[in-house]
């Protein structure tokens, strides 16, 4: 137990609560020590600092195309009678040789990085303890509560994208979109805590962090209903078993490789619907605070492949470029430049980027499934 306590203290030192724990008002855990939750929110952790984007939000593909033109030509194209010509030219800017397009193949286009966050403050966790021998140099943030060493280069790269950043304290469209995926059952995520003796302090808690095939049970306002039942997926790949502890009403888990399924749609191949991708986070941790209403709030942090950060735009292909106006090559350049994890020994380029997802999980009944027996086959 002493080793547990030391580990707990060390882990506690790495993290800073986002939501202060109110341990005095926390209920007692169930007698069987088992607590289930379903995620009602899982989206990039947004922090809208005043100094983040001094040059404005990330430019659109149209804007970036215009910047490639001489001043006089740019002014001519912006005249109303020339709108059709401009549209034809900037959408053409999304395509390369041999049928490539800027969002499906952003690495085939040599474009400058998009604007990145200049501010010093962001949400996130200290994923590398200040130094990671397998990572790359980066400029960590300070958390909103003053904790240094926050690793969230994903936010630095993407925090000036309009659809991420949002306005006036509300996150962008990505937050609503990802919430909708939770509601629709395409990204359903559940937590099952076992061995919980106290919501204030417990040195040894097992956390099963998994997907479920079950569609969310929501009320008339599309809010997740507490006490609904979910069954863990049979696929052991998406059933992550983590070791954790509770310190001062905050649940923390040890670093682990966490993989979670993302189903984009119900199977149609017309557009991004039907695609299957993953949340793939290495050295990932949960830091969740028990709330008096029984929910959990906090962060999930880890290193994600840079391709995964822009999966939605990439799957969207030319539509993401010509309709949404994403300059995916500029996005890719920013992510590649800021990647700080999983350094390729051969090239020195990091292939993953630190990230933080803000989460809310509400109480649920979770039916666990034992991992399927794996039989070796030739």
């Amino acid at each position, binding site marked *: 137990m002493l080793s547990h306590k030391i580990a707990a203290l060390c882990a506690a030192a790495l993290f800073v609560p986002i939501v202060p724990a109110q341990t005095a008002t926390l209920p007692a855990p169930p007698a069987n020590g088992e607590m289930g939750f379903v995620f009602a929110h899982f989206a990039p952790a947004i922090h809208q600092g005043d100094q983040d984007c001094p040059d404005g939000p990330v430019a659109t593909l149209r804007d970036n195309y215009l910047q490639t033109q001489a001043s006089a030509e740019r002014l001519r194209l912006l005249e109303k009678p020339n709108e059709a010509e401009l549209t034809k030219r900037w959408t053409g800017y999304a395509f390369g040789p041999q049928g490539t397009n800027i969002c499906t193949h952003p690495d085939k286009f040599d474009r400058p990085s998009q604007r990145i966050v200049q501010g010093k403050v962001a949400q996130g966790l200290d994923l590398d303890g200040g130094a990671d021998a397998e990572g790359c140099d980066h400029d960590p943030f300070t958390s909103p509560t003053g904790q240094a060493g926050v690793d969230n280069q994903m936010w630095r790269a993407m925090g000036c994208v309009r659809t991420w950043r949002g306005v006036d304290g509300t996150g962008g469209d990505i937050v609503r979109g990802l919430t909708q995926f939770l509601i629709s059952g395409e990204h359903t995520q559940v937590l099952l805590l076992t061995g919980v003796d106290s919501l204030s302090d417990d040195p040894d808690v097992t956390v099963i962090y998994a997907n479920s*095939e*079950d569609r969310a*049970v*929501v*009320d*008339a*306002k599309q*809010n997740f*209903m*507490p*006490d*609904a*039942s979910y*069954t863990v997926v049979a696929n052991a790949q998406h059933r992550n078993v983590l070791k954790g502890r509770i310190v001062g009403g905050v649940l923390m888990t040890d670093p682990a490789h966490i993989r979670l399924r993302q189903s984009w749609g119900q199977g149609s191949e017309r557009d991004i619907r039907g695609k299957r991708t993953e949340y793939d986070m290495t050295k990932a941790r949960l830091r969740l605070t028990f709330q008096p209403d029984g929910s959990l709030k906090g962060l999930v942090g880890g290193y994600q492949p840079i391709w995964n950060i822009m999966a939605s735009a990439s799957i969207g292909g030319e539509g993401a470029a010509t309709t949404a106006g994403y300059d995916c090559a500029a996005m890719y350049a920013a992510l590649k430049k800021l990647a700080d994890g999983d350094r390729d020994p051969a090239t020195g380029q990091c292939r993953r980027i630190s990230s933080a997802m803000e989460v809310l999980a509400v109480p649920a*009944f979770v*039916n666990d499934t034992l991992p399927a027996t794996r039989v070796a086959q030739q």
Partner: protein
Amino acid sequence: MIRALCFLAALGLTACSAEKAPQSVSAEPSFVPLKAPLGQIVAMRRLTEAQYRNSIADIFGPDIRVAGRFEPIVRPVHELIATGAASSTISPAGLEQFDAMARAIAAQIFDADHRAQFMACAPRDVAAPDPDCAARVLVPVGRYLFRRPMTQEEVAAYVMMAGKATASSGDFHKGLELALAAMLVSPHFLYVVESAEADPESPGDLRLDNLARASRLSFLLWNTTPNETLLKAAEQGQLTDPSQLAAIAGRMVRSPRLEDGVRAFFADMLLFEKFDEMAKDQIVYPRFNPDVASALSEQMLRMIVDQLVTQKGDYRDLFTTRRTFINRALGPLYQAKVTSTQGWVPYEFAPGDDRAGLLGQAGFLALYAHSGRSSPTLRGRAIRELLLCQPVPNPPGNVNFTAVQDVTSTAMPTAKMRLTAHNSDPVCAACHRITDPLGLPLEKFDGIGAFRRQENGAPIDTAGLFEGVAFQGNIGLGKALAASTSTTECVAGRAFQYATGRVPEDDGALAGGIEQDFAKDGYRIASLFLRVATMPQAYRIAAPPLAAPEIAMTTSKGVHP
């Protein structure tokens, strides 16, 4: 009834010239037209929606889609839909719906995918009328639809109708399709026509004849149209023989299909049609979504069927059983873990859980509540009227409801306090004394049947009183109902009413006798249904025969009976 027939006539079903039934029709029983005249019609009971759907599925297969809206059968006050069905008309708009459904059903049956299983022959020319083949197809189908062999006039009329339609469309199957659609809007299909014969046991009186008994048994016990075995038994005169009737009915109550009959009976007895119009205030009850709404009635029926049919349990235990069923939609409402991702799973409440019994089910609690608040009065009234058969008078028109409707009152935070204030008016108090002591024990369940410990922060008093016995909560209420003979007398009487369309009080001591037999049988529902299905009194005809129906579709030479 006559109105309904007139509406059918008004539809203008093809009037055709008389044509003899084909002579070459096989002598197999199902191909033989009815030569004897129809018996005296003593009642016509409209098919319920479920009976219509079940009939189509059983006759033509479950893959035949029945799409459309059914005009509801009006329920007489304090009675059953089964009783209302005996005096139900069909409006012109309702008939249009039946006609549209009939045409859609007939089109499916004679489409290329389905027709082979119904075609007893191939037409000589697929583009020309073939009366012989048409009759070979339509006569057996008509026997199932009308629950008796068709008369010669009917065969002639439908065959001719098919022939004319074939001639105009150039398609034999289109002709059959039109004839079948006409059969599906015939009163002989839309109504269960009960016909009678002289009762040899009681000269001068009538009793239901064999074919009418086949329909009675089938709709009572299985909620569907008679099958081949039952029709054959009727055609052989077995159903007027008490011992053979008992043997056949006994086999039917032992069939798994009794579940359909029991479901239909309790859906009628407990006014389940109200679920279709139940609405809850989304501001007050955001948890009440369409999935929850659609699961509530099914949960109650599953509990009833499990207790009474699957477990073959005592009816009284329905009010105390801890066994029920649950699905994912209802899990949050019950704050219960549901172990299956899809469908229903058995669920047992913990000992002492106030949810036990039929009255603790969210369906009952939500149905008998207002859209934004619970209602001890509505719940108490429902228990009195539906489960104890004790009608409660309607409130007078000038009642001041201010006190009971002030649900956020800090001075009177609970429903009991508000009702106490309301009952300071002695006119109100008289009826509330009947209802509220049965509804207040359920106050720990809100207007959608979710458990609550307090109301407006105040503790909830669930004291109740029934037949001089005081108790607490739903568990106490369930035990009190289970111990009362009013409860068992009520269901026994309802079963007779459901079977016959008659109120048992009409038959004097009959209701008491049914209840005594029910008691002897250990209050088993199968035994109750068997008794009702076999008791001679249920087949005796008290009312005078109806006038013979007139249908303008048979021939152009005249209207045939």
